[in-house]
């Protein structure tokens, strides 16, 4: 919203696209941002990715409104509900909102309905709060498969191209995994970088302390206070 204001003030032809989860629409800051964007007629698109759960809490516990898109009404901007697993529909809706913003007609709120197939994190157990059948139902609506079907049926995709895309994606993912596993820890001096435009005297002292420590051999047990367990 601030970025859109700045772009407008600088005379740029820029539209800001802000992504929000369904849970975040309950935070006060979300509402303040929508109100500001509408009051200042800013070129912003608020795109809510409604994946049905904020960790374990379903959308029904986030809002009593008929949809999250309805929240636009109170701020005086259009609210659009779209099937988020339909890439063509999302492109169309976001494109229309971008044209509105570009034409000086202000912000748009878009709610894209989708689903979080996996748990929230690798520490989350989604079976505690949603049935497997629900996940299976949404798996059948895989947006990638739907886009592939659409492109194939309209003659824009064949099996060879699809296989090549899949292979390229797998290669990209494999490369990312390899590099993540092989990633060397950043040097300890990184701790003190980018805190201020230049380190304060205190930070320079602390960096010196760490350098002095790192030059000395350290006891193994001293490195893991977290593993010392209970009292």
């Amino acid at each position, binding site marked *: 919203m601030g970025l859109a204001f700045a772009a407008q003030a600088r005379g740029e032809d820029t539209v800001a696209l802000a992504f929000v989860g369904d849970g975040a629409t309950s935070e006060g800051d979300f509402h303040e941002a929508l109100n500001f964007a509408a009051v200042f007629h800013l070129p912003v698109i608020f795109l809510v990715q409604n994946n049905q759960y904020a960790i374990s809490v379903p959308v029904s*516990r986030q809002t009593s409104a008929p949809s999250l898109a309805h929240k636009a009404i109170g701020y005086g901007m259009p609210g659009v509900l779209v099937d988020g697993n339909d890439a063509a529909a999302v492109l169309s809706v976001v494109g229309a909102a971008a044209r509105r913003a570009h034409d000086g007609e202000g912000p748009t709120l878009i709610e894209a309905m989708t689903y979080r197939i996996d748990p929230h994190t690798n520490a989350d157990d989604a079976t505690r709060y949603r049935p497997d059948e629900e996940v299976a139902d949404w798996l059948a609506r895989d947006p990638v498969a739907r886009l592939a079907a659409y492109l194939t049926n309209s003659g824009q995709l064949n099996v060879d191209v699809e296989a090549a895309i899949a292979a390229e994606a797998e290669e990209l993912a494999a490369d990312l995994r390899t590099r993540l596993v092989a990633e060397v820890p950043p040097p300890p001096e990184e*701790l*003190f970088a980018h805190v201020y435009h230049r380190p304060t005297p205190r930070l320079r002292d602390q960096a010196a302390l760490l350098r002095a*420590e790192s030059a000395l051999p350290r006891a193994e047990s001293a490195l893991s206070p977290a593993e010392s367990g209970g009292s």
Partner: protein
Amino acid sequence: MAVSMAQAINQALADCLAEDERVLVFGEDVGTLGGVFRVTDGLAAKYGERRCFDTPLAESGIVGMAVGMAMHGMRPVVEMQFDAFAYPAFEQIVSHVAKMRNRTRGKVSLPMVIRVPYGGGIGGVEHHSDSSEAYYAHTPGLTVVAPATVADAYGLLRAAVAWPDPVIFLEPKRLYWSKDEVTLPAEVEPIGRAAIRRPGADATLVAYGPSVQVALAAAEAAVEEGWDLEVVDVRSIVPLDEETLIASVRKTGRAVVVAEAPGFASVAAEIAALLSERCFHALEAPVRRVTGFDIPYPSPKLEHHHLPDVERILDAVATLQWEDA
């Protein structure tokens, strides 16, 4: 029986819910899921969704609702999920929770507990590892408590729910799975009293929350160096048990304050100032602090450099002018 800190807190909440109908437990993911750390596991099922429930994702709303509830006779116990998740609620906490008693000249009090899983050491990223105690301790009107043991997690939480003022209850999240031999229900511990975890004669290590275990490990390691260190667990940051801290340091003549939070303008700084002022004539050396660096909480691969550890504590102890003793 070996009990984890998470189980002890769960039991304290369950006992509060069972004994007092005014107690309500709510926050993000505390109901159906039982909390992201499973601290509220089973409470919604046992005590019903009217007593333990999920809220919309809005920390300011959670605390704001607790304010109204406490004003009207309930005893809300809310969870902030992670330390830095509490920051959106800061306006409510600082402007209303902390000040209502004073603003109304004592007519309206807000007995409530804000549980904050806090601190690092779990490989968490930004927003998940802050030691945020100084913000609260700096705000007059808030009681600030940080247990370091399984028994205290139970006993201090029970005391916090019974306390007539709002309590910020800081749960060291890296100790959630630490276990002690404890029989529940444990004793209800008085708020405002520190505990000597290890008696010693040569120097005092002052710590609270997750740093107590590190201080105890340092005291054990110091035996090899010939130092007999006393470890004081602050337990209650506000009100601070000045008497116990001062008595310990007057006895030993040396002190190192240990805490994870950045050291500048910190609780550790306040304790060091107190000890310098009140123990001056008994001190053999300047009071030292071993704290986190003055940086945003770092990435998991670097956090072990940031957190106070045994070596860093022993390095500080070594500077306490032993040659002049």
